[in-house]
């Protein structure tokens, strides 16, 4: 279990917090936020290598705020691995073995060779043990760094952008290793990243840090579906955010300033709301071809087409601007081009509303 209570951390003129966060034992939490949001400061404070300006830190139920780093029993893995360059891979992993129960120190409790072999097996570095860190690839380095952190039997694991220095090709495999090892060892993890894909792929719980404050915490799919405010919605790629007012007689009907009305699944929470629609939830049809039962049908004109990998982002005016994300294949089948007239549909369940603040 990892806990933050009103934690403030500062580096020079820059500061972050106060933050409150709880990661239950055994859970994999991801702290997600733009670069420069102060995420690394939080990890450094938890690890005990940076002082907090205010607040208290908890690991495994114990208040560690005043404990020196070497007694906190938290593992730390940085973006670039930071394997000790003067030691072999095996010696890197064995570095933390001597700690044992966190009280005794020195070389009293030498690692059994089995523990080393078992750890190496678990993270898939058995064939690397005799190598020097300089000869490893980015992904291999991160595996060794993980094994080294695990060797000290940490009560919590802190990961600082552990995938961002790794090739795209090796990243997925490493994600898999992280996920499975952490689950098998029942580790409590706090992983910070600016990469949404990384966060969603790994997190049990996702905490959003924007402008130095925690905006929202929850399961990734919930955060995606029900962003707490406009900043979160936009950061998560919900490109359609539009102001609307609740219909006076029908709480499930929202009127946009442009006169268009959208039907929503749940009653609107306030008279004035921001409607949020993710572009992949907007469907595009030839005019008249939308399924007859569709609730929200909008006539629109295509104003912009941007190829994004296998998808095309379709910018449309309906007359309110609306963006849709369709597969490149579908865009081709529809013969989409700038200036074309199309029909858009949005399922009421795909329209999320946030009370205007």
């Amino acid at each position, binding site marked *: 279990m990892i806990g933050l209570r009103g934690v403030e951390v500062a580096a020079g003129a820059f500061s972050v917090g106060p933050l409150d966060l709880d990661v239950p034992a055994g859970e994999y939490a991801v702290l997600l936020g733009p670069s420069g949001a102060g995420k690394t400061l939080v990890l*450094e404070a938890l*690890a*005990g*290598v940076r002082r907090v300006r205010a607040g208290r830190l908890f690991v495994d139920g114990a208040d560690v705020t005043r404990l*020196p*780093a*070497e007694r*906190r029993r*938290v*593992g*730390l893995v*940085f973006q670039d691995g*930071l394997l*000790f*360059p*003067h030691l072999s891979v095996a010696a890197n992993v064995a*570095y*933390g073995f*001597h*700690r044992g129960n*966190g009280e005794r*120190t020195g070389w009293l409790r030498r690692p059994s060779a089995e523990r080393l072999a078992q750890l190496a097996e678990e993270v898939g570095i058995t064939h690397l043990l005799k190598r020097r860190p300089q000869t490893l690839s980015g992904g291999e380095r991160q595996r060794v760094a993980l094994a*080294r*952190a695990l*060797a*000290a039997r*940490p009560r919590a694991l802190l990961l600082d952008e552990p995938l961002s220095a790794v090739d795209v090709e090796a990243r997925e495999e490493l994600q898999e290793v992280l996920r499975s090892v952490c689950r098998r060892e029942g580790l409590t993890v706090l992983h910070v990243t600016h990469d949404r894909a990384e966060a969603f792929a790994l997190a049990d719980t996702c905490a959003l840090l924007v402008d130095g404050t925690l905006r929202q915490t929850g399961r990734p799919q919930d955060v995606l579906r029900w962003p707490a405010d406009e900043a979160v919605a936009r950061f998560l790629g919900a490109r359609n955010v539009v102001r609307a007012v609740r219909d006076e007689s029908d709480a499930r009907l929202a009127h946009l300033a442009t006169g268009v009305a959208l039907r929503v699944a749940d009653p609107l929470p306030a008279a004035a709301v921001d409607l949020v629609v993710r572009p992949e939830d907007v469907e595009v049809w030839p005019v008249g071809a939308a399924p007859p039962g569709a609730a929200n049908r909008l006539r629109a004109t295509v104003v912009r087409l941007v190829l994004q990998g296998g998808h095309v982002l379709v910018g449309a005016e309906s007359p309110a601007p609306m963006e849709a994300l369709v597969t490149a294949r579908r865009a081709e089948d529809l013969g989409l081009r700038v200036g074309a007239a199309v029909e858009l549909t949005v399922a009421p369940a795909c329209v999320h509303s946030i009370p205007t603040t």
Partner: protein
Amino acid sequence: MRGRRLSLFWAACAVAGALLVAFVVLPAASMIAGAGAGFLGEALRQGDIRRSLWLTVSAALIATAIAFVVGVPLAYLLARRDFVGKRAIEGIIDLPIVFPHTAAGIALLMVWGRDGIMGRLLAPFGISFTETVAGIVLAMLFVSLPFLVDTSRETFALVDERYEHVARTLGSSPGGAFLRVTFPQAWRGVLAGAVLMWGRGISEFGAVVILAYNPKVISVLTFELFEGFGLRAAQPPAVLIVIVAFVVFLVVRTVLLPRRGRSRKGSA
């Protein structure tokens, strides 16, 4: 025409460089030639030069050892911690570099001489710093300690502090992290600093000659021989000390700090 200007610009730089290199090489080569011409053997056959060499080498070694014990911890402190007055302390440690050496000798005498604070304090114990080996060590220590402290500090600063953070989370105390993680990565730089300091110590003249004309270190002996008997007489000890200094320099540049002073280049 533009194509010409390109070569002209770099050619001008190259000519300037060649002049400067020749200016430095010429005296250095004369010295090396002197060693070949038998001055070196001549020097080593003279008893007073041998004794002087031994005195110089060992006094510089003692000064370096003292600086190592107190200077390396200070260098690490300066590389790792921020505190009020840190910049001032860095400046103070570098002062001896700009302290004119004869003036340094005078200043040291004011403090450690018979009438200085430290001199009076230590006199009852029979320790004197005028015309003694202790004085020579003192002068060498003062003028050369920035070499060890600065080089060590820079080397420590080059070791990413986060290595120590990782070591701490793996159970090492701050001292343990320093010994097991930082020093093993920085020892070459520290050793280079020590060798440079030693090399600087053996060649000191201005401060030493004021504190202790006797016993004579090599540079004082060179000066005395030159004043008394002229250029030829002064060449043997000069050749000797230059050879030692060059060896030190070569060891530092090619073995200990082979990548020092490289300009940043290229990309991919």
